[in-house]
């Protein structure tokens, strides 16, 4: 009996298929052709942006986008200067790096307490964080906006003098929203750490702090890598809070500064394409280099339960 067989081999699958399935399933080439077509269709918009970002505006204006030729690098040079990309990429880093580090650290704390101890409030605590991750941010805008405008901070924290229009305000909002997802994923992972490890740590005289830093955190490297990948992408891509909380355009992270590439009366789409490619580049690199981390982080969070 092949009850435990992992999966039927392609050869037998083909046989059963032609007998039972519809015409598309019967065709050995239909499926790969169909999937290839869909994949190419999906890559289309990105390929289009990539291709036209390297083409001269005057050329495509004359010959249309469905043409070939007019290759140039000026769009990138122009987009970089016109969009002030150097500054905005730097802003993105100033926001994303602390926000991801704080999010991961706080999630580890919450997950550790929930997984390591059996307090009565554990489930409620985790729920408090997970639900916060799912609330629509626009619904919280009014109070957060008014609160940030009213809270005075020293000038070394923000040159605006308030939390509104400050990087730290935006970082904290991102942390508050993202901690829930990470805490949830991490707590599930930490629950699989054998209790015996903590027992021997306690016998060795390790306090909670040492257990956390020398036992739990090193064991959590795989989910932390996955979550770091995801969170860098999400916070880098975050648009809403950055747009409404940072009011002066020169503070915008690169994702929110995208509008700078649009002219007031006329938009050079090739320039926009070059800008889009540059903005997408960090996330695309992360995705291709750390695809496994990216995918496992997403499925860890979504399929548990």
């Amino acid at each position: 009996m092949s009850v435990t067989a992992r999966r039927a081999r392609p050869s037998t699958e083909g046989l059963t298929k032609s007998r039972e399935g519809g015409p598309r399933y019967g065709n050995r080439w239909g499926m790969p052709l169909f999937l290839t077509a869909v994949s190419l269709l999906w890559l289309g918009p990105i390929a289009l942006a990539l291709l036209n970002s390297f083409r001269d505006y005057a050329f495509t204006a004359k010959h249309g986008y469905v043409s070939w030729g007019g290759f140039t690098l000026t769009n990138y040079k122009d987009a970089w200067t016109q969009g002030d990309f150097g500054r905005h990429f730097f802003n993105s880093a100033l926001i994303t790096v602390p926000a991801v580090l704080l999010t991961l650290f706080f999630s580890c704390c919450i997950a550790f307490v929930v997984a390591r101890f059996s307090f009565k409030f554990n489930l409620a605590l985790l729920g408090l964080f997970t639900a916060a991750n799912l609330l629509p941010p626009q619904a919280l805008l009014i109070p957060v906006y008014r609160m940030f405008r009213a809270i005075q901070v020293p000038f070394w924290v923000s040159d605006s003098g308030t939390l509104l229009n400050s990087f730290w305000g935006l970082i904290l909002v991102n942390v508050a929203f993202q901690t829930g997802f990470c805490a949830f994923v991490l707590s599930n992972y930490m629950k699989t750490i054998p209790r015996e490890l903590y027992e021997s740590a306690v016998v060795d005289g390790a306090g909670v702090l040492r257990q956390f830093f020398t036992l739990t955190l090193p064991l959590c490297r795989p989910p932390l890598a996955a979550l770091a990948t995801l969170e860098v992408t999400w916070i880098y891509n975050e648009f809403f809070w950055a747009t409404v909380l940072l009011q002066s355009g020169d503070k915008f992270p690169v994702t929110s500064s995208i509008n700078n590439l649009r002219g007031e009366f006329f938009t050079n789409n090739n320039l926009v394409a070059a800008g889009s490619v540059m903005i997408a580049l960090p996330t695309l690199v992360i995705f291709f280099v750390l695809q496994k981390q990216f995918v496992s982080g997403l499925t860890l969070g979504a399929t548990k339960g």
Partner: protein
Amino acid sequence: MARSRYKGINQLSGTDRVVVGAMVLVPTAIVVWLVWLPAVASVLLSFTNWDGIGPVSSAKVIGLKNYKDVVEIYPPFWPAIQHNLIWLVVMFLVATPIGMLLAVLIDRGVAGSRFYQTSLFLPVVLSLALIGFIWQLIYSKDQGVLNAVTGGSTDWYGDPSVNLWAALVAASWRQVGYIMLLYLAGLKGVDPSLREAARVDGANERTTFFKIVFPVLRPINIIVLVVTVIESLRAFDLVWVINKGRNGLELISTLVTSNIVGEASRIGFGSALATFMLLISSVFIVIYLRIVMREPS
């Protein structure tokens, strides 16, 4: 027996108590301050007439008047509701089935599945704001690919009769890959012996999927449902970069934002809209929490 042994490691020294307390309280303080307090404040403000100029204490409670105004005399409200619903329906009836179908096809182990997966998933790593810009190359009136190929002259982002659908195509482009990934993960978790048994019983591929595999995927189905509802409610970035959610692209989220960030800051009014969003989302958040937090038995 095991229980009494574990008691030892749950005993906390004085320092440990402080450490555990800080680990819980610092993150909790941040999330309560920046998420839960504002959520409650939004609901409370929706019953007042605060104009945002004087102190909050000057606000008067005016009952349900804001809600009445929103429903009765605010022209973009009903279009926004309609657009949010269309958004939800398209994500649910178009993007989700396509994502599911692609997951099922890829899960059958065709050659090159890695290539298919990567291509389909690629848009998911892009922000929706960026997607709005990338699709401008396709939708733009004078230079766009769509008009070039069809020979038309539609302003796909500008024309209020089509721009919602244009935005939905772009949003679905991203959503399909996400849904596919969730279902791929779910399908990998399906016990292969179930399919085997169905095959032995003579069930065909389709019957096996709908009668055996699909019911086993129930938790994923519910999570996808909840994620779809919440994402449809939160939809914002894409329409905001197109035209700040006006002229055919009104959504509840953009109405709230326009009422606060724009020149006219109508606090109570915007809060009523916000409360509406909170109410819908909380129903689905509760469903979600009940699924994912169920202790494995």
